[in-house]
């Protein structure tokens, strides 16, 4: 355990100091890695901890982004206030889906399909919603990009990097705390054998709902970040099932249910994606779609040969704990 803490401290220090050596495009890549590490951890709470496979997490990113974005666009309401609305809406949505699923005994594949259906339904819905700009999208005014203005969440790329770093670190701390707590034990028990868990006095419905609420709340925050980082929102893009798949790629490759898996997976994937782009450019193979083919192949290879993700095996080799 001591070794793990040391490794963690080193990693944290490296990430804090990273902007000293890295600028511009590379910094934005780093921010993106942290974004996927964060959303991956949020998703991991529902899947890795409570065992519910959600393939529609883009729903929460999108609703969170649009909620805060629309409030800013129409009423000039800043991101900090918008954040609470975003979280509230996403939690309510998550609880709705959870209630419908758990009360009616929908699980496994059917639950996953239910989440997809909700995300798709919302995507098409937002396409027809004029108040948020419809399919043409919504564009947020960017006041300035120089000075750190946390109140309005405007500033240089550096500010966004540290924000995402803070969020990812916070998520990590939260998840490790949860895992060791009663919630963590109960979620694992529910995941392993729900009937046995009930026989031990666990109200499985309530605990599953809690996981859903936490997961959707965390993802909502990512949505708000997304809105004020990219400043343009399109239903086709943000609610698309590809976004949902992107969110889960990190944890699955890194290791579902582990603390460090989502972070590792996000790093591996983003760097790989970039690396492939560079390689293809060098080879002169720049047709549309070829990068994703490579992506898919890598994914396939990892899934076939490393079913528990990269982290568990790596952790054992490095002699670390979790």
């Amino acid at each position, binding site marked *: 355990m001591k070794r793990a803490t040391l490794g963690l401290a080193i990693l944290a220090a490296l990430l804090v100091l990273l902007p000293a050596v890295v600028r511009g495009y590379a910094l934005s890549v780093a921010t993106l890695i942290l974004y996927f590490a964060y959303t991956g951890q949020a998703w991991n709470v529902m899947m890795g901890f409570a065992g519910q496979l959600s393939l529609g997490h883009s729903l929460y990113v999108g609703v969170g982004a649009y909620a805060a974005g629309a409030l800013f666009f129409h009423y000039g309401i800043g991101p900090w206030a918008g954040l609470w609305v975003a979280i509230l809406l996403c939690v309510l949505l998550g609880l709705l889906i959870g209630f419908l699923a758990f009360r*009616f005994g929908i699980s496994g594949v059917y639950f*996953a*399909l239910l989440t997809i*259906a909700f995300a*798709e339904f919302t995507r098409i819905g937002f396409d*027809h919603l004029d108040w948020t700009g419809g399919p043409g999208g919504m564009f947020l005014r960017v006041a300035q990009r120089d000075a750190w203005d946390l109140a309005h969440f405007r500033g240089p790329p550096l500010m966004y990097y540290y924000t995402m770093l803070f969020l990812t670190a916070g998520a990590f701390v939260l998840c490790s705390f949860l895992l060791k707590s009663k919630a963590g034990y109960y979620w694992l028990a529910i995941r392993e054998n729900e009937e046995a868990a009930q026989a031990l006095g666990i109200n499985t419905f309530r605990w599953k709902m809690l996981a859903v609420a936490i997961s959707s709340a965390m993802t909502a925050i990512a949505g708000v970040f997304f809105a004020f980082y990219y400043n343009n929102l399109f239903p086709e893009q943000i609610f698309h099932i590809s976004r949902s798949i992107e969110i889960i790629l990190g944890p699955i490759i890194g290791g579902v249910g582990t603390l460090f898996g989502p972070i590792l997976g996000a790093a591996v994937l983003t760097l790989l994606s970039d690396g492939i782009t560079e390689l293809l450019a060098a080879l002169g193979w720049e047709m549309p779609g070829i990068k994703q*083919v490579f992506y898919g192949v890598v994914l*396939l290879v990892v899934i076939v040969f490393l079913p528990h993700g990269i982290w568990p095996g790596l952790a054992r080799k490095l002699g670390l704990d979790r």
Partner: protein
Amino acid sequence: MTWHLVVNVAIAGLLTGLVYGLMALGLSVIFGVVRVVNFAHGEMMTIAMYATVTLFAVWQLDPFVAVVPIAAAFFVFGYLMQAGIINPFITRPEHSQFMLLVAVAIIMVNGLMVSFGPDARNVQVDYQLESYAIGPILFDKARLLAAGMALAASAALFAFFRFSLTGKAIRACADNWLGAKVVGLDVKHLYALTFGLGSACVAVAGSMMILLVDVTPVLGPAYTLLAFVIVIVGGMGSMAGALLGGVLIGLSEALAGLFIQPSAKSMISFGLLILVLLVRPQGLLGKKA
């Protein structure tokens, strides 16, 4: 908005729905037996459509002719995919299975994008322009023939499962995997066979579909979702349910496109999915788990 416009649109939707039904039938068979969620189903359909386009462009093969070699090829491909790649995943957690097929789907969709580019492709045959008329009611010839083929293929599959020894063996596997093994059935081979048959269904559906719509690589994921909606609405494990679901979806999409905005018609499908999952999760004709 005359009544015969509505009826014609409804008929077109119904006939298209039968082709959807065949596609969903393939999925139902695969999921019902092998219990693997084929997330690449729509992508396979798209590949079949492109294959038909290619055979038509290069050798002027009519889709009704091209369907034979394409279905055969898909059968072999499906068999190999199940036996080779998917088989070890049957005992693994669901998210692993899902992701395996998602990876396959990603490779397929983008492989198509690389090979054919993003532009729409189609086949042009004479009978696409012909139709039969009973008064003001029109039946597109191409649509009618495609639906007929879909029905024929479904009937053949149904007969196979009902009357042939292998078909019964496969149903035994679906009912009780361990029991089937105990009585000496080669479950791995039967699973692969089933995947092959499901793939062949998709191939036939694809060859027929290209007569009705243009194909682009991005159709893949849309068809995958559609197939799942149909199977769930119609009932997992019910072959008639897949066809019924297909017809229902085809009909509601066509009518929704007419009465509401065309772009909103998928919402109907998803709304229906959510409703069915809540009210009657085993689907219209499915058996309770």
